[in-house]
Every structure is written in C-alpha cells, then in structure tokens.
C-alpha cells in the first residue's frame, strides 16, 4: 500500500490538469502533470510503477503519435486515453497499440480511477516480470561458459553421457558442471531449470 506509484497526466488545459491531480489525490495517488507531450518526454522517469493519462487532442504531437513515439523509445508506460468526443476508429487504434482504457470527456471519476489503477497494476506486473528476468539473466551470466554449454544441452534433453561425448570429457565432469549450474541458477529441479531457460530464451537480446 505504501509502495510508491506515480500517475503522469498530459493535457493542454490547466483546469483539467489540476482537477485530475485533485481527483487522483483523493485515492492517495501521486500525480505529475505536463502541458505537452514534449515536456513529458524531457522528464527523467523514476523507476517506480507509473502510468500516463493522455488527451488525444494535444497541441503539437497528437496523442496517437505520442503513443507511437513512446513505443519507439522503448518506454513501455501504460496509457489511459482521454478524448473530447468519442472517435471510435481512433480509440480502436489506441487500444490496439496497447492503451489501457479510452475515456470520453467528461468521464465518471470511478472510470478514470479504475483505469488508472489497472494501468498501474499492469506496469507493476511488467516491472516485476522484468526484474525476475533480469535476475535470471544475472544468474545465468554467473555460470562459466562450460557450465552454460552444459545447461543448454541439459534443457535440450540430452543425457549426461551424451553431453560428455559431445564435449569430449568425462561423464563425472559433466555431472559436476550440472550440479554447480543448478545451484547458481537456484533451480530446485530440472523442470525448474527448463522453465528458467525458456524465459531467458524469449527475452529480447538486450541483456546479452
């Protein structure tokens, strides 16, 4: 509950900005507002769960262009869109591009709060997942290259004997590598290790 979270809101209307901030404060959410997409982009984002409340009619960069820009910069912040008049094709595109919600102004307070909380949850989950993967990566990186080779062959389903033959070494040596790797990876079982390797494999190559 005391976990720090922050809601960013971009709207060109100061009244809307301050009223949003007030409304969010009633449920204990901290909000930071911006009058344009550019000023938001200049902001150094804190490493806490956060979301973005965005008016689609923005001066300069439009809301949808802004969404694309964020994706291009690899900023995976969940977005709650606000719009002046219900534009169905626009909302469909926004949702497809990963928007959490698309609200028509003026909206019911509960709808906005629900959407914002959902967005924050989504961001927290993403962060947790990212953290887990990063941890796995760190562990994997701590293996020696021979241990990494052995792990790759193990999760591919090869027997110790086969691995030994492949690497041109003794079966016992393979066993030692394997148990050290299991220990370093904090894997309780072979199945555990397989899942871990599977997770790493699906990760973008960023960490490699």
């Amino acid at each position, binding site marked *: 509950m005391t976990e720090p979270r922050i809601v960013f809101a971009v709207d060109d209307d100061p009244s809307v900005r301050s009223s949003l901030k*007030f409304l969010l404060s009633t449920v204990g959410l901290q909000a930071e507002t911006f009058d344009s997409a550019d000023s938001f982009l200049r902001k150094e984002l804190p490493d806490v769960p956060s979301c973005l409340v965005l008016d689609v009619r923005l001066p300069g960069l439009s809301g949808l262009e802004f969404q694309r820009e964020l994706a291009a910069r690899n900023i995976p912040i969940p977005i709650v869109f606000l719009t002046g008049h219900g534009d169905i094709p626009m909302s469909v595109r926004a949702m497809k591009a990963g928007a959490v919600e698309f609200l028509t102004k003026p909206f019911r307070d509960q709808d906005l709060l629900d959407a914002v909380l959902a967005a924050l949850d989504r961001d927290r989950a993403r962060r947790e997942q990212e953290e887990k993967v990063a941890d796995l990566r760190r562990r994997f990186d701590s293996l020696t290259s021979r241990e990494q080779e052995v792990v790759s062959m193990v999760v591919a389903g090869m027997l110790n004997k086969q691995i030994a033959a492949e690497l041109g070494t003794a079966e016992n040596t393979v066993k030692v590598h394997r148990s050290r790797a299991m220990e370093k990876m904090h894997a309780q079982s072979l199945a555990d290790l397989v899942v871990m390797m599977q997770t790493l494999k699906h990760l973008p190559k960023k960490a490699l």
Partner: protein
Amino acid sequence: MSSFSTLRVNTALEDSIPEAGASLESILCTEELQRRPSRPSDYEKENRALVALMSALADSPSTIFQTLAETILDITQCDSAGLSLLTRDGKKPDVCGKRFYWPAIAGMWNPHVGGGTPRNFGPCGDVLDRNRTLLFRHFERRYPYLMPVIPAAEECLLVPFYVAGEAVGTIWAIMHSDRRKFDAEDDRVMASLGRFASSAYRALIHMEDLKFQVSEREKAEAEVRELARGLEAKIRRLVEANVVGIVMWNLEGAITGANEAFLRMVQYDREDLASGRVRWTDLTPAEWRGRDERAVAELKASGIFRPFEKEYFRKDGSRVPVLLGGAPFEGDGNDGVAFVLDLTEQKRAQEKLQEAQQSLYATQVDLARVSRLTTMGELAASIAHEVNQPLTAVTNNASACLRLLTDRNLDPEVLRRALEEIVADAARASAVIARIRAFIKKAPAEKSELDINEVIQEVLALADHELQKKRIFVECQLTKTLPLVLADRVQLQQVLLNLIMNGIEAMTAVTDRPRVLWVQSQADESGEILVAVRDAGIGLGSEADRLFTPFFTTKASGMGMGLPISRSLVEGHGGRLWVTPNSPHGAMFSFTLPVAGGSPS
C-alpha cells in the same frame, strides 16, 4: 553669233536706239513692190513647196518652221529667210510678248537661229503695229541694234504671221545684195506661205497639245497600270500566301474561285472547284442560311457585309467554324470576293477556356461544400472540445470533493479551492457557448440592392458542375423586372446554394423519373419577393417538422446545420423560409424577401 548674243543681253542699247536712228518712213519702200516689174507666178513651184511643207508637217512637225524658212528661201530666191515669233518665255508665241525670237532661219543668217530682238526695236514690231506686209531697205539705219547682225540686209520683206487671228510674229525674206529686188509676186507668195505657216502652226500646236494630252494620258495610264500591277501583286501575294481563305463568289451561290487555304478549310480540291460542285449555299448548314441572307441584304444595302461568324460543311460532312467578310466587285454587285478565316483553333481555345471555367466552377462548388462541411465539422469538434475541457474539470473537482466528503476527510480549505475552480470552469464553459453563438452570427450582413434573378443565375452557375454531374435538369421560371431586394449577396448565395444542393442530393437516388429542379422567382400577393426551389427528390416524409432543428439531418454526411442557418439568414433579412411537400414528389423550399426601399404596396 557671239556678237549677236552680246546684243541680246545689252538692254542699255535698246533704250537709245529709236532717237538716234532714221525715221521709219525713210527705211520703208513697201509701195515699190507694186511698181517693180513682177516675176510670173510659178504656181507649180508654189504647190510643190506647199506639198513639201505638208509632208514636213506630217513627218516632222517640230521642224516645220525650219522647213518653212527653207521654202521661202527657195521660192523667193532670197539670201536669208526666217521666222520671228513674239514670245514671253522665249518659246511659246504670245501676243503680249516683249521680245521676238527666231526659231528658224535659212540661208546666210542661219547661224543666228535662236536669236531675236526686243518687241519695239526691230522691223517685226513695225509690221505687227501696222498689221501688214512691209518692205524695208537697210533697216539697220533705224535699228542699230541689228547692225552687228551680218551680213547686213539690203532689203527685207516681212509678212505678218497670225495664230488664231492674232499677229504674233512675222515671216521674212532678206536680200543681202542688190542681186534682185522683191516684187509683187514675192509679196503674194509670202502672204500665201504666211497663211500656210499660220495654219501649220495651229496644226502643230494642236498636235503638240494632242501629243501632250496623249503622253499625259499614257503617263496616267502607265501609273494606273503600275498601281494595278502593284496592287495585283499584293493581292496575289495575299491570295497565294494562304494565310486566310479567299473566295470569289456570286449571289447565285457559286464559288467562282478560291485559294488553297479556303479549299483546305472545307476539304475540297481544285477539281471540285472547277466542276462547280462547290457552292457556298450548299456549304452552309441550314441554321446559318438566315445569317447568310442577312449578310446579302447588308451587301445590297451598303455594298459590303461586315465580318460575321458562321460554319461551313466540310466535304466529309463535319463543320468548320469560320469568320467571313467580303465585298462585291464593281459592276452589278452580283460577284464579289470574301475572306474566310478558320476559327477552329480559336473555338478550341475558347472551349478549353470554358472547360477551365467549368472546372473552376466545379472547384468552387466543391470548395464551398468542403468549407461548409469543414467549417461545420470543425465547429462541432471545437464545441465538443472547448466545452468538454471545463466540464471535465468541473466533474473531476466535484467528484473528488464527493469522495473526500464520503471519507469525511474534507478540509474546508480544499473544498473552497475546489469550488472556486468549479465556478471558474462553469463560467468558462458558458463563455465558450457565447463565443460560438457570436461565431455563428458572424460578421454583420453587408446589404445592397440586388436583382434576385441575377443572384439565382450566379448560384446556378456555381452549382452547374454538380447539376451536370448528377444529370439534373434545371427549369428556371424567373419573373422578369422584379423589384430589387436589399440583401447581403454572399448570404443570399449561401441560402440558395444550400437549397439547391439539398435539392440535388434529394434527387441523386431518383432513377424512375426525370431529375428536375425548378427554381422560381416572383412577387407574392403581399408584394414581397418569393423564391422557390422545388425538387423531384425523395421528399420529406414525416421529418418535415424537424428539418430546421439544428443538427437534425437525414443525410449520411450532413451536419444538420444548413437549413437552420439558411432560415436564420433569411430571417435576418426580414423574410421567411419554409418547406412544403412538392406534388407528386419531392419538396419545395420557399423563402420571401422584402423589396428594397420600404414596404411594398
């Protein structure tokens, strides 16, 4: 000769002579002629002489005087013979002349040809004064002026010489020695030759005159010929240059000649022309015959017909637009010439221009539509955004307050600030509404006196492209000479365009009947101008009542603002706009406008 020339110019001498010289009587011996033994008349010789003179006259009239002098010399057997003529210019005989000159001298004095004496200082003057033949002996005794003219004259017989009854000179014969003396026969012959000389001279003058006239005439003719040749060359150049078509025609309808340019225009060849198959009456399409007849009437009345545009059939039956102008030749006016200018290029250019204008109109119509739609669309979006922003803020603030109230956690200061913002945003929303209302009213109308029919025509032109594209036939029933209305032209155009566009759109789906749009103007019973736009479209159905409600629309792309705005514009002009069903199909939109200059009767 040289000494004589000196005399001629020595005028000082002329003045002193008469007083110093002998008396006239002392040098005259005319009476002696009759007393002297006379020679027998030699008529044969005389006749021969006359014949010689005649033939000289015929052969070389300019030397007749010289021939005469020689004839006198021959017949009288004297030493010198010649002719003195009174003259003013030294050439032409003139009774009022101040000097005698000697155009011809034969015999010993021949070297003195071209010389002469002053009128009153020589024997010739005496002969003219007395108007008779005189015989002088040594006249240099009285007239020292003649002393240097050698050899001296022993005797001189002078006979008056008449032209047209007036004595203008003398013919004379001189003996420089006493070898023989003049007698009565000489007197007779000289008189006879004198008469002959007169008539010869007359003939000569006449012939000279004739010759002059002939030469003048020849000169004039040559000039005319030259002119004609030049003109003909120019005309030929014009005809053969083929920059314009040239046609020779007659009123019976024949084309008697034409240049290549014309034949090319109508696609006939020389053979066709020679055969007489090419007739301008046949080349003329039926609807242009009336125009031709007018030109012929003009030609007969004024001798020319002013250029006019018409069409000719080409050989292949197609038509060529031309400009035609011409005039008849001299004479009965039945034949003439005309120039023919091919207007195909001009027409094509004109059509292109018209097409360009059409597409310009089309663009304008589209633009009017687009700007109408964009304006309305943007207006609507703007309304939504501008009103939504403060509404959102109000809602947010109020909701937040409610939440805090529910949680019993509302700080009065927070509440106060929130309420202040709510009030401010509510005021902002209402300001937006006021601004929109002002926008719709827009600029004040600029009213001027307008002819409603003119405005209708303008709008129809504006919508022309749309009407053609949708294949809609417009039937105008405009009452002429309607009173003017006081209105804003642009607003009136907007209303009419809106009604016409509505009519067009109402008929686009119609396929089972003609798509007709009626536009009417008239004065209604109260004297106001009534304009009606009727269509044969899908009609109003049950929606007629709601048509003028803002944002009500039956059209897929409509904003529902056209008719409400049109109505408010018409009402702004003091008129009314209403709709009634049209029988059997469609709708009729009518509006009235008061006439300019106060209330109608």
